């Protein structure tokens, strides 16, 4: 079906992106990360390669999506042992590919799986790994990556002195774009003596009952922070979201307080949103949060503090008690 290529003959020096494939389904985050990586690859005059580890070629449900992607080439490693996510085996396979193809960069989406695998691979290769990158650019032939730092209102630009350059890329930070040409498809053939063994055995899988949140692609986002004072008030955001056809987002502190699940965290270590309308209730706007929503088209802030960063960023800011405003708003909308 695809061109078969021995691992030792892989083209060298390219940009590799890990394609997340779980139980026959492609995770869209793998297509998102191709958008910034394509620009990086072009600036460095390198090819962009999307890499999949899968159990069998018949398993690919999303082949059409993959064919439309920005990748110049798509590489598949196919082995029945790769059907389940086995962190140690996956690491070994990825490390072998890196050793043979000496890529310039290797990138993962910052999904739970990406964040489990990337550090193992970085450890195996003894190279640096940047986390939750939401910006990548090439300057003086070097990849510059950035993320906000903790406790300061600054963005740090980072480089990696080791090779390949490695990073996990923030979810939702980039839009999926499609390529002009169908990528070349290749199946990588591993040596006969490669061991496909793992110390992990997946015994059972219980699918999540919750639907994955559609936060990163939501057109309208209503988001809450500490200014809502308690979990009960925060939960009212779901009523508002229902009325407005919105998704609910949150700041880091309220996720840590347990007011809402971490999947709804907007910001550096959470999701990046780009809705048409973003409404923040009781959110002052720490950089940790604002990097995840600053590209919203129209921002409404509801906060007591006139000098809060989110109030300044907003197209419309209402200075008042977020809790009272939310409650009265709901009352009026329902009547």
């Amino acid at each position, binding site marked *: 079906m695809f061109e078969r290529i021995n691992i030792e003959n892989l083209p060298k020096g390219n940009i590799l992106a890990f394609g997340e494939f779980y*139980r026959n389904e492609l*995770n869209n985050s793998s297509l998102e990360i191709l958008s910034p990586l394509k620009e990086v690859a072009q600036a460095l005059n390198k090819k962009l390669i999307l890499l999949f580890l899968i159990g069998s070629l018949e398993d690919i449900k999303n082949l059409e999506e993959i064919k439309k992607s920005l990748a110049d080439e798509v590489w598949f490693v196919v082995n029945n042992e790769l059907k389940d996510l086995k*962190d140690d085996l996956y690491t070994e396979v990825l490390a072998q590919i890196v050793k043979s193809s000496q890529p310039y960069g290797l990138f993962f989406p910052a*999904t739970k*799986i990406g*964040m*489990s*695998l990337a550090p*193992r691979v*970085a*450890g195996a290769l*003894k190279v*640096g*790994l940047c*986390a939750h990158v939401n910006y990548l650019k090439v300057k003086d032939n070097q990849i*510059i990556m*950035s993320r*906000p730092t*903790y*406790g*300061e*209102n*600054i*963005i*740090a*630009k*980072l*480089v990696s*002195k080791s090779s390949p350059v490695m990073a996990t890329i923030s979810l939702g930070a980039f839009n999926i774009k499609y390529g002009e040409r169908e990528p070349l498809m290749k199946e990588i053939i591993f040596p006969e003596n490669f061991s496909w063994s*793992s*110390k*992990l*055995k*997946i*015994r*059972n*899988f*219980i*699918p*999540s009952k919750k639907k994955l949140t559609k936060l990163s692609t939501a057109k*309208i986002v209503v988001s809450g922070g500490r200014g809502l004072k308690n979990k009960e008030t925060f939960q009212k955001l779901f009523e508002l979201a229902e009325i407005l056809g919105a998704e609910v987002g949150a700041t880091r502190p309220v996720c840590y307080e347990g007011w809402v699940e*971490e999947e709804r965290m907007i910001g550096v270590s959470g999701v990046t949103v780009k809705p048409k309308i973003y409404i923040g209730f009781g959110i002052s706007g720490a*950089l940790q949060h604002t990097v995840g929503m600053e590209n919203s088209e129209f921002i*409404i802030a*509801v906060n007591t503090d*006139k000098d809060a960063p989110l*109030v*300044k*960023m*907003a*197209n*419309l*800011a*209402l*200075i*008042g008690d977020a809790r009272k*405003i939310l409650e*009265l*708003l709901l009352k*009026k909308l329902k009547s």
Partner: protein
Amino acid sequence: MEKIIVCIKGVPEPGSVKVDPETHALKRESMELILNPNDRPALEMAVRLKNDYNIELVAISMGPPNVIPLLKHAYALGVDQMILLSDRAFAGSDTLATSYVLAEAIKKLSPFSLVLMGLKSIDGETAQVPPETASLLDIPSLTNVKSLFMKDNKWIAIREIEYGEEEVEVEGPLVCSVSPTAFEYIRPPSLKRLLEVKNKEPIVWQAGDLNLDSQKLGLKGSPTQVVEVIEKKIETKGIILEGETEELVEKLIEVLKEKALIKN
């Protein structure tokens, strides 16, 4: 079964953050440090396993001497031995350099059956150190683990991924990062052990005690480097309205109608 090791981290009390203006690394030695909140479930899981299997539990923390109270807190929860990994040379370590130090300390504690860590620290938030340490030790790792027990000499873990939960069987030893929501109840420290630990001090291991390669430590041993920082300046760009709740809500409804989010 051999001993269990739990790694904990001191993170700045929110609001007390001090940053080195040149390197932009946190100045942990001059800050009030609290136990990383995500390490609490890791400690809880460690203490439960220790009690279930009646086995030695060792806590390690890498950091300046002001993390000692956190190790003592771990002791009061049920940890048997406290180890502080502390050396000026460790300052500014990125995740690879940190994982290197932890992995070497864990090797020195061999044999062991399990290493537990919190999912991620609330300061760095990378979540990289647990799998990276496991990789350097060349043993398996699982992240976001919500339950763990031993059966027929193998670990059985439930890990969370975006799509659901997987039950995984692992031939140990193993490194796990524990899900922040693994436990509804987290025990408080025991009063008896709090008194007991007053007269105890952790064992301190420096770079020399672990025969570490100085080229792999601290800021200069870290492959990821900050090259530039940009201050985010925010300028007021929109309309700021003050007034009574009633007025503000009316305005909000007006805008929502304008944007066609609600009908007239």
